[in-house]
């Protein structure tokens, strides 16, 4: 495994939890190996208890590997200085309830030794980005789970990290927040940031990840680029524009003749997420926003600075090119 442009390298990584008498109790991670490269979105998937969180905690230095080698940004996970380039969103919002949203972000920004001016600018932009600019002076204890999650996300990005580790980032978020997080992940990747995403919401992972590793029982069961893993090697899909029935019949007849069998015919549909987002977008044009988290804005300026060039259409083009190359 090369460490050229590798942000995380895990080799034969194991973690055994021991009891008070130092007897092995649980083997949470069992000799896994994977590599996360710079600029990619890497997904760690697996059911509960599969070892995802344990792996992330080892990457952050919260747990020490029992065996194996782990390098983060070329350093040991316990290296304090390397953490200045990492942003972390834990699986639950571990925040100080007595602090306001602004104070929370300011606290984390101070841990990165940011100047007062930088802190002020970034806090404003991040609160705007997560739709909480009007609740900056409310204490976290008054927040809903989703609002606290948004503050957690903002705090993970306060240092404009090179490596973003997101543990169940969409947990507790409404579909709008979920969409925004996914857009944000894509935006970060466009800027060359590396994202390590842990989730058991497969649709989230499918939408944003370049490569994934599926864990089960502390072992890696599958690993690779997501499109390769999901592709049916023995099938093609052809999308046709809407056409009159006689034309359609002609196309089907031609296919029958070539294939020698009846082709499947189905009408494409939006997924529920798309439908929900369209409905809310229409509703927003008609009424005032609700209390609590406001409508989400664009990605914070300091996070989006270098990403503007990559427009959504450019993204689509790039994906088509990838597909053709494959």
């Amino acid at each position, binding site marked *: 495994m090369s460490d050229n442009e590798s942000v995380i390298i895990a080799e034969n990584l194991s973690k055994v939890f021991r009891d008070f008498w130092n007897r092995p109790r649980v083997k949470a991670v069992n000799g896994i190996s994977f590599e996360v490269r710079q600029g990619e979105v890497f997904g760690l998937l697996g059911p509960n208890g599969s070892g995802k969180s344990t792996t992330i905690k080892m990457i952050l230095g919260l*747990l020490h590997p029992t065996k194996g080698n782990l390098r983060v940004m070329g350093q040991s996970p316990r290296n304090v200085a390397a953490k200045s380039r990492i942003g*972390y969103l834990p699986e639950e919002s*571990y925040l100080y309830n007595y602090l306001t949203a602004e104070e929370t972000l300011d*606290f984390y920004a101070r841990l990165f030794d940011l100047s007062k001016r930088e802190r002020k600018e970034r806090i404003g932009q991040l609160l705007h980005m997560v739709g909480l600019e009007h609740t900056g002076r409310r204490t976290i204890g008054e927040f809903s789970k989703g609002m606290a999650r948004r503050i957690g996300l903002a705090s993970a990005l306060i240092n404009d990290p090179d490596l973003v580790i997101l543990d169940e980032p969409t947990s507790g978020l409404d579909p709008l927040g979920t969409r925004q997080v996914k857009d944000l992940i894509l935006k970060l990747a466009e800027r060359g940031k590396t994202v390590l995403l842990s989730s058991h919401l497969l649709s989230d992972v499918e939408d944003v990840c370049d490569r994934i590793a599926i864990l089960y029982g502390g072992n890696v069961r599958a690993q690779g680029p997501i499109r390769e893993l999901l592709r049916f090697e023995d099938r093609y899909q052809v999308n046709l524009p809407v056409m009159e029935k006689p034309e359609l019949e002609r196309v089907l007849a031609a296919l029958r003749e070539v294939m020698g069998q009846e082709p499947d015919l189905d009408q494409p549909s939006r997924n529920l997420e798309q439908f929900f987002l369209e409905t809310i977008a229409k509703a927003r044009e008609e009424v005032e926003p609700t209390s609590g988290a406001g409508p989400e804005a664009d990605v914070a300026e300091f996070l989006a600075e270098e990403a503007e060039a990559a427009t959504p259409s450019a993204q689509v083009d790039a994906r088509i090119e990838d597909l053709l190359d494959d």
Partner: protein
Amino acid sequence: MNRIFAITSIAIRNAIRSKIVVMLMVPLIFAAVGIPLMIKGDGTMVGKVKILLNYSLGFSLAVLSIVTLWSGCASISTEIHEKLIHTVVSKPISRFQIWLGKWFALLIVNFLLVAFAGIAIYGGLRWQTRLAGEEQETLHQTVLTSRKMVPHIEPTVPDEMVKSYYEEALRQGRPEIPIHRVRNTIKNELLDRRAVVRKEGGETFWLFEVKDKLREDHPLYLRYRFDLLAMASESESPGIWRFGKQADSPQIPVLHEAQLIHEIEIPKESIDADGRVMITYVNQSSMDVLMDRNYGPSLLFYREPFVVNYMKALLMLFFQLAFLAAIGLTAGSLFSLPVAALVSFFLILLQSFGGFLEKYEQITQSGILGPFYKFLHMLTGPLQGPNAMEQLANGNQIAAMSVVSMFLIKVLLYCGVIALIGNLLFNRREIGIPS
């Protein structure tokens, strides 16, 4: 430092917003207002003020000590338990900086609370003593003051005496005493002998040397306490204090009660040009008298205003709290809250036991546990400073050196060592273990 102060500032915000600080002010106000109302004392204002200083400050220290130890234990252990610390240690901040930030927060909160308690108790004291009347003068000369205490000169023990004592002890088959301790043993025996003043005209003298310049407007006092060496129906005993070497030197006849601390004003002119004075006690009672060596006799004279002494005492209380905060934080960074609390209380108990060993040094000399006691004594010995509250209540000056050495030893040295050992272990701790 920005990172450390970030930790400090949120810990202080927590203390204020969780209302701990406000809640703590209630017992501290009680110490200043409630305790004086409950104290009866010996009927004199001087006695009442002495007790008040001891009880009010003692009560405040006890409350703040318990809360500091508990807060120290909870500060890190709770964050580990609630996983709040995960988002902190995943940032570029070392665990030592986290510890230091929390410690500074405890120091700042304690400093403010000690200052609050100090001002409240001082205000209560002034209010209590406003109607002291005739006692006002005595009060300000003996309690609400800061006097230097000069002990009497101890007898010198010549080398020949040490040698012959040692050889005699060996000849008599007495338990062997290390040669370096023989001189102390002889000195103590001499002082014990001198403390006994025989009945019906027996005399004992003590020599004093006053190196400081005495202030004209403040008196010079002799402090003493004695016991009667026989069962007596009356506890009062007649005697004469003589100040000087000559038989016709100034004298003060006294009729004083046993087992009480006495202070008498003595003529300053009895001190010669070299600052020396010989003070003799003539026992006129029908019983032998034993002068209590713990109370001198000693000379006392004014050095500085009471407020200065009071602030020194508060500083020493604050240093003690800083030490407790370090113990609590270290225990809390290594164990869960209940275990950390138990460990901390055990350590404080050991420290107190060290004070006991200080008084009874012979315990460390014998028995199977001797080496353990000796080690404990060595470890806790430097922590046993003077009792600031007792000194304050007796109007004794708290030496600036005592304050400085307490800061150097207790705050810098011991807290530093505790922090280093604690952080060595804290760094190795896996704080992401599922609970």
